[in-house]
């Protein structure tokens, strides 16, 4: 199944924004296990993958409500 960015509603866009905040911002303190920046960028690489993950995140959030 593929997704088109134009099918994204406002909630999806704010979800993208949230992911960007959590994954790319915030103080970096080198923990004992470190994630390299390259790995984080990987997440934003494939749009299709990301959008399907947005769906999953919605499902998870709905279940928790």
């Amino acid at each position: 199944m593929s997704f088109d960015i134009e099918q994204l509603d406002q909630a999806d866009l704010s979800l993208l924004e949230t992911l960007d905040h959590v994954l790319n911002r915030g103080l970096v303190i080198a923990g004992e296990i470190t994630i390299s920046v390259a790995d984080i960028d990987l997440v934003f690489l494939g749009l299709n993958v990301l959008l399907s993950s947005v769906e999953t995140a919605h499902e998870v959030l709905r279940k928790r409500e």
Partner: protein
Amino acid sequence: MSELAYYVYCIAENAAAAQLPAASLPAAIEDESKLEWVVSNDLAALSSTVPRASYTEESLAEHLSDASWTAVRAMRHETVMEYVARRASVVPLRFGTIYLERAGVERMLEEKRRELAQIIERLRGREEWGVNVYCDQTTLMSSITSVSPVLRDLVDRAAQASPGQSYLMQKKIETLKVDEVRAALTRIIDEIEHELSQQSEDAKRLRVLKVEATEYGELKAKFAFLIKRADFETFRDAAERLAQTHQATGVRLELTGPWPAYNFTRID
């Protein structure tokens, strides 16, 4: 029993953490685990245990390429952050700050005590707000003649010129329009940044993740502003004034937040 590691979300003053007992907090990043404050002196790190096997460097690299795994955990991280940031001054950490043992978290709090306290102090009573600037290219293109003095002048002269001259000038106008649209947009975005920076304590221009069409047009710029809670209304009014001023040119502003201050954690 499988081995565990400590995932850290944020750092607050111990006095503030004491007002937020673990039982009152949202769900942790992994289902089987609960949030807890790890305390050292006057600081406390909000953390929860995670299965060490899924959070080694190798398996994390693998998990992170599975965007649904990452999205779910990033959302939980954010839910926790938002809850705490509304109730205390906290330093938000980037996703994936992990220690092998509780003692490692305590050591970090001790070693970074001074700078963490400094950031907590700087963020107290403040929130991060995002401003996204969208532009509808078609509207801007059709309104550019009235926005750009150079173009307006050419249009006036073309109207009075002979048919032959007027034709050549029209050609020139069409070519110039593209450049002028780009220049006008840069000018508008700079103005927005300048005006809103004056209404905030700190400002940061962020990268635009990807340029895609939305119902507001294309996302052209993203900013983060650090604002005192008491100053937010003034800031919002300024943003609304800017939005009204530029509406006719197809430029739209979107305000997002309040966010935990993810973009303002640098150490001075």
